[in-house]
């Protein structure tokens, strides 16, 4: 193994501690909370239908659930690529050291994967049973196996499925909030870094997660509809507009409050924070705030003008994409930015990601592509996810 594989020696100005010149958490730790956030956001949309019975989300609620599961599968993978000793990853699960916020990760993530798997299974069980009877050859065996031997599709059995799926979704809401609030806690609880050490961090992570997850669903729904040459559902698009608008408003306000609070308190070293914003992360800040404000402006105009039809689809797609990019930039600004401001508060580092290697942009791109590929395969396996297509013309 080359000694350079993990090296991220960052140039610095001012005074930093010598060991800080190697940034410990790379772009892989940027993508980890990002993917986790997409899971939480997609799950919230699915729950709006499953738990609160908002019928307008019926056409995409099962798709949102499936998307949530596919992204959750890959949420822990960036961490594995980042560990110095990946083969020991399970040490944290076998012998968790409970004073560590990170020790709970395996349990939290494992719990959430199980919950999503169960909810997907109960939501699609009737369809799986039907396909185990209609398909032939090897796929019949696959579907047969997926029924787990439960092929009762009587009315009462389906009612039980529905009831259990709803209850799982109800558990999933605090679960999703907990999962993502927890990721925020991992950063916010570190007193050593001024840029992270904020009580608002879990809330900011959670809310931005919802924003980016709704953005992802909008993008996915528009692209898959276009791909399948099916029209998008007007009710769904309107509903997603409302959810996205609410998400952006709350995220922007809370993030602005956090910044103002940090600047107003002006604790020792606040000049370092100003220099960080004007220096290493200035481009990230422009993308984060520019993306958020642009998405806020577009969605606000559409809310006021009552935009419908093709214009709504196009501009909502743009807003969703802006929100995804803005939140990705926010994750970078938090994770990398926090490490670019020295613990001495008197120096700045500039992190340059590697393009190829174990911890590199290429790995990030691959890990971020994987959930989309998995989702493509999942909707091939469970084509009934699109059963509402026929009703889209109402």
């Amino acid at each position, binding site marked *: 193994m080359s*000694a350079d*594989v*993990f*090296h991220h*020696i960052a140039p*610095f100005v001012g*005074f*930093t*501690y*010598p*060991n*800080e*010149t*190697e940034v*410990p*958490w790379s772009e892989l730790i940027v993508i980890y909370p990002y993917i986790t956030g997409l899971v939480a956001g997609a799950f919230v949309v699915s729950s709006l239908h499953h738990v609160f019975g908002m019928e307008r989300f019926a056409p995409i609620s099962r798709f949102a659930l499936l998307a949530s599961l596919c992204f959750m599968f890959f949420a822990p993978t960036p*961490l594995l690529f*980042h*560990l*110095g*000793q*990946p083969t*020991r*990853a399970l*040490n*944290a699960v076998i*012998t*968790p*050291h409970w*004073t*560590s*916020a*990170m*020790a709970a*990760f395996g349990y939290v993530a494992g719990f959430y994967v199980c919950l999503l798997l169960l909810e997907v299974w109960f939501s699609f069980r009737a369809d799986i049973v039907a396909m185990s009877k209609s398909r032939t050859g090897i796929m019949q065996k696959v579907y047969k196996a997926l029924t787990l031997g439960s092929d009762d599709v009587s009315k009462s059995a389906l009612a039980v499925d529905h009831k259990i799926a709803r209850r799982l979704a109800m558990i999933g809401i605090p679960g999703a909030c907990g999962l993502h609030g927890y990721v925020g806690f991992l950063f916010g609880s*570190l*007193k*050593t*870094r001024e840029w992270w050490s904020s009580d608002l961090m879990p809330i900011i992570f959670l809310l931005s997660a919802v924003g980016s997850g709704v953005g992802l669903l909008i993008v996915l729904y528009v692209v898959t509809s276009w791909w399948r040459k099916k029209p998008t559902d007007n009710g769904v698009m309107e509903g997603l507009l409302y959810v996205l608008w609410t998400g952006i408003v709350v995220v922007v306000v809370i993030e602005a409050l956090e910044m103002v609070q940090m600047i107003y308190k002006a604790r020792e070293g606040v000049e370092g924070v100003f220099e960080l914003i004007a220096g290493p992360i200035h481009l990230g800040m422009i993308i984060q705030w520019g993306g958020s404000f642009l998405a806020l402006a577009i969605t606000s105009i559409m809310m006021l003008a009552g935009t419908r039809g093709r214009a709504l689809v196009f501009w909502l797609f743009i807003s969703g994409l802006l929100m995804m990019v803005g939140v990705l930039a926010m994750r970078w600004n938090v994770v990398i930015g926090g*490490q670019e401001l020295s*613990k*001495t*508060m*008197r120096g700045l580092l500039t992190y340059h990601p590697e393009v190829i290697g174990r911890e590199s942009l290429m790995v990030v791109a691959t890990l971020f592509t994987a959930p989309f590929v998995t989702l493509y395969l999942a909707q091939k396996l469970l084509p009934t996810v699109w059963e509402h297509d026929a009703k889209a013309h109402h």
Partner: protein
Amino acid sequence: MTTQDTKVEKEAAKLSRRDFLGLLGKGAACAGAVAGAGAALASAGGANKLGGVGPTYQQEDAQYAEARKNPPKIPNYNWTEHKWAFGVDTNRCIGCLRCVEACKMENSVQMDRNHTRTWVERYTYLEGSDHAHVDSIHDIKNVMPGSKETRFVFDNRYKDAKVTKSFFVPKLCNQCEKPSCVQVCPTGATYKTPDGPVLIDSKYCIGCQYCVQACPYGARSLNHERGTAEKCNWCYHRITKGLNPACVEVCPTGTRIFGDRTDPESPISQFIRNNRVNVLKPDMGNMPNVFYAGIDKEVL
């Protein structure tokens, strides 16, 4: 200095002038041996993996593997009977950086300027400035020319400036009473010993670097060859045998003081008693066990 060293000193004080001169000669010979060892290190093996001269680590891989397989037994050592602590008298430090090099050699630390268990910071006030300029070994200008990041020396950048005040501050792990690194370790691979030092079980560390993030003092780093965290342990393998940490041993000015706080006559107990000492970043609540005398408001 340990208690044993104090006893040796007392014995030495009784020696005749002739014996004393003889001892001085031996001391000179020892100093020569150390210099020779340094030269040998510099010339051994040609270019290393990090582009420097000499081996990347003093310890070969085979030696490391053997030490891991058969860890040395420590007879007659009871870790509940000691409470180690460290003192730094910054008034004495001359910034020679022998401590940094001794540590890297003793503990097989990566030789480059970006990974270190102990380092020395230079604080310099220029005329008319309220704030100090600070630099340390990670500044490329402080790498000894030609050594390719294996040896260090503070450069003479202020020779034409008007300096009003300047001093050196050695840093190392504070072996805190409430260590953040131990709190955040997800596996318990790093732990606080009853006698004070915070150690790492490098067979169990997963290399997540949460501890590196959590340390307020920047004392931790990742050892890339081993994929695990790395930190100063006050040379635990030495202190448990009654020896001083390597950095204390080589310090030519007595800046670094070490000893057992359970012994009121130990060098550290005396140092804490006879000086107005301070700790770094007390507001972090970590309760460090490295005590500083003579530090300035600018020291971070």
